[in-house]
């Protein structure tokens, strides 16, 4: 848990650099509330205090990084309550929850307060040390794509710009999701430490790239190249955050390597479907939650057979 939090630090730092100090404030409020709610639930349920395993703090950190920098304090607190209470403790605590708690909090907030949750601050003109960089709302890259996908708004596609700001994170979005570079650094650390499987982010991101790429080829937009379109799909939105830090959550994803790949593939398909044809511009959270429900089934189907059970038929005992 501590390593995962450490791996999230570059992305959080990027969030602060892009959106100002309030990014840190939002994240800390979420972390603190999650820890407090976890402690309270443990007392209430007569469980042993599980705050020490740091999973609540991690949930808070992930939730905070999934919120817009403008999220009011009460929203952070309510989101944390939903994440810890509804997402985790009501299933008996760590290890029992079928859904990623941070995503439960985020999606609940997103459905309850769509306006506040889509109030994206444009990072223009941000100087280090400011509280909130800019109060202008800017469309996220994915929202631009969403509107571009309708034939009427093809003109909006001119808004598709350079990919570099997307990679570095100097764009609108949730405070921790914008910098693909920072997330990549953290993800690489987790992969190097073998805390997460490299197959998951790779398959997830590749699936999104392939499906959106095919969709683009079927219905190209004016003034947009394939590379630019796919680049925006991959680098915009919460794909990197989801692929490296949430689709790899151990509790809520399949046990085996094979299962994890199936899970990542499913997340990629659902994310693409929501982004291309769904009502929302972003589908990462929903896709991971939907695949979470399939985890037990994937586990059962990919369990494989033990040594000596399956292979007796194909390993012929030769003299």
């Amino acid at each position, binding site marked *: 848990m501590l390593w995962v939090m450490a791996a999230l630090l570059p992305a959080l730092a990027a969030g602060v650099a892009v959106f100002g100090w309030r990014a840190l404030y939002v994240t800390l409020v979420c972390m603190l509330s999650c820890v407090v709610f976890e402690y309270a639930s443990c007392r209430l349920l007569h469980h042993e205090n599980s705050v020490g395993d740091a999973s609540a703090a991690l949930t808070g950190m992930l939730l905070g990084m999934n919120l817009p920098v403008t999220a009011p304090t009460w929203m952070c607190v309510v989101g944390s309550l939903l994440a810890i209470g509804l997402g985790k403790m009501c299933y008996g605590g760590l290890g029992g929850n079928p859904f990623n708690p941070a995503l439960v909090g985020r999606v609940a907030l997103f459905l309850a307060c769509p306006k506040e949750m889509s109030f994206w601050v444009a990072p223009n003109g941000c100087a280090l040390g400011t509280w909130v960089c800019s109060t202008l709302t800017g469309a996220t890259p994915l929202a631009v794509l969403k509107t571009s996908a309708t034939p009427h708004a093809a003109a909006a596609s001119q808004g598709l710009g350079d990919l570099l700001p997307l990679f570095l994170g100097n764009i609108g979005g949730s405070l921790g999701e914008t910098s693909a570079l920072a997330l990549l650094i953290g993800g690489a650390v987790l992969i190097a430490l073998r805390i997460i499987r490299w197959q998951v982010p790779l398959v997830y991101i590749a699936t999104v790239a392939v499906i959106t790429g095919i969709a683009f080829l079927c219905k190209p937009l004016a003034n947009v190249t394939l590379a630019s379109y796919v680049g925006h799909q991959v680098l915009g939105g919460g794909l990197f955050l989801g692929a490296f830090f949430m689709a790899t959550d151990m509790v809520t994803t399949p*046990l085996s390597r094979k299962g994890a790949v199936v899970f990542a593939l499913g997340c990629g398909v659902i994310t693409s479907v929501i982004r291309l044809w769904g009502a929302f511009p972003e589908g990462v959270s929903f896709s991971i939650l939907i695949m979470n429900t399939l985890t037990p089934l994937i586990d059962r189907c990919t369990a494989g057979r033990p040594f000596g059970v399956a292979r007796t038929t194909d390993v012929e005992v030769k003299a």
Partner: protein
Amino acid sequence: MTTKANKFYGGVHPHEGKLSRRDAILAAPLQPLYTVPLQMHIGAPAKAVVAKGDKVLRGQVLGEAGGFVSAPVHSPTSGTVREVTTCLGVNGAQLPALVIESDGEDTECEPMPAIADWENADPKTLLKRIADAGIVGMGGAAFPTAVKLSPPPGREVDTLILNGVECEPCLTADHRLMLESPHQVVSGALIVGRILGVKRIVIAIEANKQDAIGLMREAVSGTPVDVMELRVRYPQGAEKQLIYAVTGRVVPSGKLPMDVRCVVMNVASAAACGDAVCNGRPLYERITTVTGTPLVNPRNYKFRIGTLYSTALELCGGVKEGVEVAKVISGGPMMGFSVYSLDIPVMKNTSGILLLSDEELRQFSPSACIRCGHCNDACPMELQPGILSVQIEHQKFDLAEKWHVMDCIECGCCAYICPAGRPLVQHMRRAKAVVIAARKAASAAAQGAKK
């Protein structure tokens, strides 16, 4: 002939901790008393053929085999039967035992005639000798060797694998045996090979014992025996994994090595077979590693069967001053059993006595399974220890049976690797015991219904 070994799935590589690998085998001095259990093997206990007060000689039969699956027990020295009693076994059960009071003479009884010309001897004669010598699997299982070497009619065995892997950390007894008596191991291998009529004999050794591999290669030159170097990976010496590594054959679930025409035997058992045939000597002593950082002198000792653990530890200089011994383990750290008393005698299958200090022993308070999947990656039987452990915690033993808990070989890789400190292998053992009991009850009920 060298063939490449296959790699089994999973496994772990624990700290080897083989402190005594360079210590030559020492003969333990004669003790005044020996506690010789009559049940040191799987199967029926031996029936005592001596009574309290009888004079016995070294190598004399104390108890004869109590059934087909059983083994005789021989006196470790000359002296008097002081008591017919019970003693504590490794698993805490009381075992029938004889206490032999040494007369200090160590006179050997008339040995069984040596079968010098074993290369041409009738395999049945050789087999009878192995049975009479009371040889059992010395790697740990203690299954009577003569029974293992008597395949049911119609069953063919073509490969004999001698297990010199010694993948268990800390233990060095087999390693030292191969270094110091390589020819005895080879002649044992050839004798057993003759009994079974196999085409291929392989001595399998883990790559961390290069000196033993070299010596064994020299010793087998001119014989049809192969030496195979295996990668260092626990549990390389587990029967099913070893057969797969050496032959590529997979022992089907619930079946025996014989079902893939293999017999696996520990090198120490093979050496004992060689000794019994060539010198007529029954099994009344064995090499045991006494080790652990708390000991002043970790050593490999040749103990007479019946030497108490307490004596063994004294011979190694006892415990260092200022070191707290937290655990005494019979066997190695991965598969051994923690014992609560030092009044347990060295038996035919005691490969090691291991002491762990307070500092080395980490006590875990297990937390919830967070499904990290490390145990799946480590389980050499490709089971799902994490899922099984949750099922077992909820007492869903029928479900655990469906998820193949009975294929668990109890190697302990899962519990070793678990970051939540969950006692996974202990869960498996519990479930296996419950399932076996349920199966027994079911078959008893079926028998009752027939009547």
